[in-house]
């Protein structure tokens, strides 16, 4: 019997302005990854990976995501994730609204990824025992003027 094998990648999204939270939707995230897949790997990469990529868990409060990819493409996706900076829609073309992904865990089952997120709450911003981060909105800590390029 043919069994489709997957990899589940647990990510944390670090954002630079607080109001981006209302735009944390699965389509926005896969759209951002698709844009940068196209940049790095071209048509072949984006065409073979994008249909096999989906968001299985999204939590806007803790900023955590669990992505699912075909097992063959897991390594390629992991190389693209550091380069993802901004999302595609017109609101975010301004360079100030930056995000980046931080891979926390890669596993073969969604259950073990979930267990990891539960065990290691302190890794993410909202779970930090340094509770100042929970009181102040996430984005304000990392506010900065855009660099002069």
């Amino acid at each position: 019997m043919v069994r489709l094998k997957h990899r589940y990648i647990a990510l944390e999204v670090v954002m630079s302005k607080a109001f981006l939270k209302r735009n944390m939707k699965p389509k926005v995230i896969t759209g951002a990854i698709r844009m940068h897949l196209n940049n790095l790997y071209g048509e072949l990469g984006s065409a073979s990976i994008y249909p096999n990529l989906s968001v299985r868990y999204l939590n806007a409060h803790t900023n955590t995501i669990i992505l699912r990819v075909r097992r063959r493409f897991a390594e390629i996706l992991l190389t693209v994730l550091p380069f993802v900076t901004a999302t595609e829609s017109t609101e975010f073309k301004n360079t100030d609204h930056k995000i980046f992904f931080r891979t926390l865990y890669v596993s073969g089952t969604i259950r073990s990824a979930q267990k990891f997120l539960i065990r290691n709450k302190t890794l993410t911003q909202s779970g930090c025992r340094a509770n100042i981060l929970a009181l102040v909105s996430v984005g304000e800590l990392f506010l900065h003027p855009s660099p002069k390029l």
Partner: protein
Amino acid sequence: MANLPLPKHGKYFDLNVPSDEAVSTVSKRLTMLVYLGYEIVALTKFLPTTTSSKGKKKLIIPDPPSKVQLEETAEKILKDKGAELLQYTRITIELAELDDVRKVREVLNAGVYDLVAVLPRTEKLFHSCCTEYNIDIICIDGSEPLPYIPRHNAIKSAITRGLFFEVCYAPMIRNNTVRRHTISNVQKFAEFSKGKNHIMSGAAQIPMEVRGPYDVANINTLFCVAKNIVTHTVSKNCRAAVVHGFSRKTAKCAIYVQKKDIVTEDREIVKGKENNMKKLFDNNQNSPPLKKKKVE
């Protein structure tokens, strides 16, 4: 061996945090690094080439950056972990002409910086960096395609001497053309070195350009480096580079003198820097005199 001022194994390093700007911007970058899990950092100063003008100007080497005070959030995160952020000092010297070599000599004579890095622009300079100079890191730049062809002999001798090849990932994130150039440049090096003695570091100008250690290690698969060696570029090789820089302060890498930590009678630990043997033991009047009196 236990008390040497060297970092422990198994930590994550970022050996290029530009510190040419104000302290507040640098400390913002450091909070992001601390949050993502880095524990050892090197603050860099950059020495660009000076085009030879009329007469020889006096060389001014910039002062090493002083230790940066961390913001509150970073200190709380470190306190929870029970860890410390070690800050080293580093200088990057850009070599484009033969005149710039005396900069390297002066920096080495001054002996103020922990790590010395070099950015060669021509083939002769690259060859002499790999074989002669007493430096730690050779930078691979991405702003232009490599102006020289790295030879197998030069890279092999650099690896045996304990030099490291550094790649910066933050310029790759900013700019598409730099991404292409770095990938092609580093692949030329990786053909001969097979990913050995490679270091990944971020020359991040804003905190949002910093990436976690696992992500940075994964960028190495783009450079055709084997997947089992990929995490070494962020932890093991960086530590070896710091040790290589430290060895310049020792006597032939065999002897190093430092003051010992002492446990006093009240079971307090007096750290090495504050340790002054005379002060501790002056109270005891019954102690024999330090010098023997001459018997006449």
